[in-house]
């Protein structure tokens, strides 16, 4: 890939002064620096990850044994709803925007993101949205309790917590659209001389595709929830059959957003994994061009498969067949990516630092999630599995072992660049192995629960589901506690530790490693020239 020649490293330090910026909290409120904003995104998303995680543990505690012990059904439904909304919109999406902010300018040799002030605004819209979501638990009637998919007419029955969720989604949507416009513009316009599109690191490519997906689908979600809002308060009947509407219309609109959305949360992870696998295999990425085409194909296909989430709604047979075939073909570019990663490792000189462990864990578990996705794509089989724990297991294999593991891989990979210190490798490995084992303990058994017929989103269950639920709950607590290791490791790494060289990984390639560690406040004010 790219071989960078840069000017002397000395030109970074001269600009590393903060004299022209306010100090204290005002620095963070007014900053337009991509690194500051990237850090804020990452901290915000980790905080939301813990909040959403506590909700998950509340859910799992109630499901530890049959009967109602900890929470009542209404509150349980609020937990599942907020857990989903917070993890998708508050944790995973902002985490990858944080990575993009930090790494894209460094990787393409730009001095900052294209729109500094918009960048600041798109971050600072997140805390109010998070506040709306979390405080909705305390308003009369409680938080939204219709599931993160917000299907009407159930949403029409809810209290003001639903309106707060709708406004939160509006704000989060505007924020992600602005973030994505910024990212796409930065990639298209601010690349260093010689950094052609097909020389870009894969992380840039995956974010470019993701940014277009976000810009395309977030307005659709905003439209869907706005229609819900007007149905609730202004007498419209978009989703009310009595007024000529159709409840299933919402599902079509929602999943036309929702399916690209699930790729939005995983595609940037593909980019991180590609770079990490190549670095620790000490070998260039196999099939760079086919990787790019596969990501683009997955992005385009994601718009054509939405109704596979709706096989049991009573779609016509022809529609079921079409959506089944279209969905199935996504397995082809996804398979290409798995094969390419395997071929990258083949014949390499492999070491297994924490980022590599998370990357291999990602491939291993994401493939399981891909296979269960293929099973679910088969409409005749899906009828048995739709809305059961099999689906819950499937999307946690793609979202947790997929998106979250790739975020961990990226975090460990770039922590030395961000902090200037090496993280504690042993603790990182323990974090990986605990996450890996407890993740499977939590979610693998849920496949069995789903096959046996346990519906999702129920606060209590029949006795035959008791044993696997117990295992799953114990695993969930193990998984949750393991994440505190990561937090501790990061804090220790920020405060001190072994000095990191500019390029801590000997197999790494890319412009970000030409910048000293920690990356100075301003980088690439003189653009490098890429040969």
């Amino acid at each position, binding site marked *: 890939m790219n071989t960078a020649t840069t000017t002397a490293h000395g030109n970074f330090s001269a600009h590393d002064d903060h004299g022209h910026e306010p100090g204290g909290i005002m620095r963070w409120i007014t900053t337009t620096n991509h690194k500051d904003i990237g850090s804020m995104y990452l901290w915000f998303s980790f905080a939301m990850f813990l909040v959403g995680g506590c909700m998950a543990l509340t859910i799992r505690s109630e499901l530890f044994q049959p009967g109602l012990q900890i929470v009542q059904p209404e509150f349980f*439904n609020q937990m599942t709803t907020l857990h989903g909304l917070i993890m998708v919109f508050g944790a995973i999406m902002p985490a990858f925007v944080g990575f993009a902010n930090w790494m894209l300018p460094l990787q393409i040799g730009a001095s900052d993101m294209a729109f500094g002030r918009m960048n600041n605004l798109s971050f600072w819209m997140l805390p109010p949205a998070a506040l709306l979501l979390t405080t909705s638990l305390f308003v009369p009637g409680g938080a939204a309790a219709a599931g993160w998919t917000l299907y009407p007419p159930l949403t029409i029955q809810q209290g003001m917590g639903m309106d707060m969720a709708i406004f939160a989604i509006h704000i989060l949507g505007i924020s992600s659209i602005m973030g994505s416009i910024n990212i796409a513009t930065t990639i298209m316009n601010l690349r260093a001389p010689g950094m052609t599109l097909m020389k870009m690191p894969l992380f840039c490519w995956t974010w470019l595709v993701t940014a277009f997906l976000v810009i395309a689908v977030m307005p659709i979600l905003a439209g869907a929830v706005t229609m819900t809002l007007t149905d609730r308060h202004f007498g419209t009947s978009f989703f009310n059959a009595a007024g000529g509407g159709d409840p299933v219309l919402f599902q079509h609109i929602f999943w036309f957003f929702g399916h690209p959305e699930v790729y939005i949360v995983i595609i940037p992870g593909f980019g991180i994994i590609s770079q990490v696998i190549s670095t620790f295999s000490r070998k260039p990425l196999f*099939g760079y061009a086919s990787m790019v085409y596969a990501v683009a194909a997955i992005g385009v296909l994601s718009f054509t498969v939405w109704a596979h989430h709706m096989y049991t709604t009573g779609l016509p047979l022809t529609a079921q067949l079409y959506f089944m075939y279209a969905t199935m073909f996504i397995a082809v570019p996804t398979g290409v990516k798995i094969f390419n990663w395997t071929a*990258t490792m083949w014949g390499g000189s492999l070491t297994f630092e924490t980022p590599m462990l998370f990357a291999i864990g990602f491939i291993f578990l994401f493939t399981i999630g891909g296979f269960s996705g293929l099973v679910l794509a088969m409409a005749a089989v899906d009828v048995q599995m739709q*809305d059961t724990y099999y689906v819950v297991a499937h999307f946690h294999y793609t979202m947790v072992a997929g998106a979250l593991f790739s975020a961990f891989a990226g975090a460990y990979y770039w922590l030395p660049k961000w902090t200037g210190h090496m993280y504690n490798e042993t603790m990182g490995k323990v974090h990986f192995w605990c996450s890996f084992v407890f993740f499977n303990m939590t979610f693998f058994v849920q496949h069995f629960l789903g096959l046996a017929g346990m519906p999702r989103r129920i606060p209590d269950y029949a006795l035959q589901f008791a044993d696997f639920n117990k295992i799953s709950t114990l695993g969930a607590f193990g998984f949750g506690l393991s994440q505190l290791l990561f937090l501790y490791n990061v804090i220790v790494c920020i405060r001190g530790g072994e000095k990191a060289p500019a390029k801590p990984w000997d197999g790494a390639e890319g412009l970000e490693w030409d910048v000293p560690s920690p990356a100075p406040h301003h980088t690439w004010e003189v653009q490098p020239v890429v040969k």
Partner: protein
Amino acid sequence: MSGSTQKLGVSRLFAGLVLGLLAYSANAAYQVNFQEPATKLAHTVYDLHMMMMYICGVIFVGVFGVMFYSIVKHRKAPGRESAAFHENTTVEILWTVIPTIILLVMVWPVTKALVSMRDATGADITIKATGYQWKWGYDYIKGEGEGIKFKSVLSTPREQIDGNVPKGEHYLLEVDNHLVVPVGKKVRILTTAEDVIHSWFVPAFAVKQDAVPGFIRDTSFRAEREGTFRGQCAELCGKDHGFMPIVVDVVSQEKYSAWVAEQKAKMAAAADDPAKVWTLPELMARGEAVYLQNCAACHQPTGKGLPPAFPALDGSKIATGPKEGHIGLVVNGKPGTAMAAFGKQLSDAEIASVITYERNAWGNKMGDIVQPAEIKSHAK
């Protein structure tokens, strides 16, 4: 470096765990596959799923066999140079084309199964299943048993859910009135809902069909053996989504005919004489039963409700106010809340008795009586 040996160890452990669990499959508590099929279609789905598992399993072992070989053999060692290759057009075309072919092979039997699954024609018996928050209503609308209708409500006692008494064998999978169908006959189920979306799901039949308010969907099954089959609502429908199971009794033709006759006789006996004038104790007794079946999930047996979503009836303005307002609310419901329009679900006698009950139970001592004849005149 020790990480990868550890990894192999752990993945072996994991594989062992999975195999161990599979070996447990005879034990119902650790059931790791579909429920035992009771229809031909469910057998087909079971086999399709197994086929997919085998194909996926082989691919999985193949891909990760290569990767783990690499992890073991291609690790960094003194003097080891990593290869420099990074593309191979032939290989890349092969691993695009071969998966496509595998997918085409896979999808053919699934297509056939789907086509037969969606064919609900030629039914012997047609039953409408209506989802309510939170129970199912069944109307036999065509074939033997036509005209039978009843509601099917969770019969697990609250004390079991709260853990005050031991849980029964069919905890949360038991209802007061079972759906009864004859063995070997094609049964078409029309689904719809009164309030929000529900989903009619019986795993042993491989049947799941959403029940969408305002629309009718259909699905069908032909049970090939007798027995009792249990399922649950599969679409989140509010507070008691987890508490509206489905129980189907598949019986022999003779037993079915006997059941139909019994139901018809029961319905004739239970039909209320519209001219009858009820006494307070009669209405209270009937009203309590109706209340527990239809109202207690939200408003609670104590009448205290679960404020603010589900208001208390004990001492409420409606239940202690004029009769007209109380009747209007129960008959027409309250749009935008979970309060359904019970005029569509209950008979006049049931509504009259439950309103009388609510006005005279707990701390409410109105002392007045609502007669069935008053319901029609007070409804909107």
